[in-house]
């Protein structure tokens, strides 16, 4: 059974070499500052054997974005969630983890396409499911869809 590591425990372990990276923790989640995400991820990969990146997502809370990384270790069969916050609405950006896990390649492009968060250090940062030159980023809450039978909603 995949064990979910306690967020507080992992936060304590990251806090030893990187004291000001962690901003909080939860039962399952570790919150880090967005500039420190690459160092924290590298620590998790090398010292705690997190060799498998399950998914990268972004959520739009109306005043900030959250980028969520689900990580898993196939060798030891445990998992943890890494989460960071991005306050800039005009041109948000977060360091890319594609140098650690190649699986982040297409997922980061999709987050850029649909949410508008760009990832620094990604070799091919361009739109993937929508076409070049499309105006706007659809998954943001201020992109209004006109759904039939539902009226206009965010």
């Amino acid at each position, binding site marked *: *059974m*995949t064990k979910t590591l306690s967020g507080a425990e992992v936060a304590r372990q990251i806090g030893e070499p990187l004291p000001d990276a962690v901003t909080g923790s939860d039962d399952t989640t570790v919150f880090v500052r967005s500039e420190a995400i690459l160092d924290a991820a590298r620590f998790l990969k090398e010292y705690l054997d997190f*060799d*498998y*990146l*399950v*998914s990268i*997502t972004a*959520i*739009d809370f109306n005043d900030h974005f959250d980028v*969520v990384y*689900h990580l898993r270790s*196939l060798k030891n*069969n445990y998992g943890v*969630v890494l989460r960071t916050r991005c306050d800039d609405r005009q041109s948000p950006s977060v360091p890319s983890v594609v140098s650690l*896990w*190649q*699986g*982040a*390649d*297409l*997922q980061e492009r*999709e987050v850029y396409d*649909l949410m508008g968060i760009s990832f620094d250090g990604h070799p091919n940062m361009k739109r*993937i*499911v*929508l*076409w070049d030159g499309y105006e706007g980023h*659809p*998954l943001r809450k201020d*992109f209004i*869809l006109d*759904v039939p039978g*539902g009226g206009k*909603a965010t």
Partner: protein
Amino acid sequence: MTLETEPVVLNMGPQHPSTHGVFRMRVTFDGEVIVDFEPVFGYLHRGIEKLAEHKTYLQNMPYTDRLDYVASMSNNWAYALAVEKLAGIEVPERAEYLRVIMGELMRLSSHLVGVGALFNDMGAFMTPFLYMYREREKILDLFDMVCGQRLTYNYMRFGGVSHDIPEEFMPTLRRFIDDMPRYIDEYDRLLAENEIVLARSKGVGILPAEKAINASVSGPVLRGSGVKWDLRKNNPYSIYDRFDFDIPTGTVGDVYDRYRVRVEEMRQSVRIVKQAMEQIPQGEVRTRVPTPLKPPPGEAYASVEAPKGELGFYLVSDGGAKPYRFKIRAPSFINLTILRDLVMGWKLADAIIIFGSIDICMGEVDR
């Protein structure tokens, strides 16, 4: 003497003679050898994640059918698991057994299409595909009997399944499951040691195990490279810990290994269905949940071992009747990360086979 050559960019457009869907590849050739490869997606991007934020949780169930349309039951199951985790709903025993039976029949059906399409690409024009389709029609008849639909079922609900099976289901299933191993052996007799299949697929598109893990690959592609990871054994969901089955793995990670892993998985699915048919109890098939369902604020990630890989749903709820964020972790999309590395240096015909062996479904890739 060196020849002056110029690279040629060829577009293998969204419309092409294969059953994998609208996938486009921009390939740069030097003669016949591939030197650069760029996949282009988005031709089936329907905006499901955005549309799902406007509809209630139950109204989103039919959208999940349309993701991997060859294996709809697995998509429904993954979504039902995520919502049950978010809202804390229990599932009765009989419903769990029915879900397992439907899930494993779906795995059989999807692998039949996947292997048939691979042989279509290899040049055995339609014969293996039509043979395998004959069995798939029998499975679709079973689903038709249960929920009235052949392709997009909408059968799972939060807290169980939508309704109970009719009386003629079990005898028909028993006849089908007793015959199925004979058919799988028939395919193997025709194809497994065939000279052309071996020449075209052994040693082609080798994926080493560390690269597969690093690229977040899952499903038969990961197991073909020798990594013994299957969510049904390593992180059992539902009642999979009560069944006795093996996880087949490959050794080298080439196209032949991925094909063999899928055929062996079909045999293991038959085993699981036999055990489930014996153990299934009587009882209810669905727990009462309020409509519209309003889960407490929070988030949940749940995943199943779908035929194509690990299919996961990540739901964020703000306490209302509609999800705040509906994220789909699609296996085919993430498995395509390694396609570029696998085809470099091969010729065009091999690239088609390597692409076919990853077995994708465009509904999932683009969502």
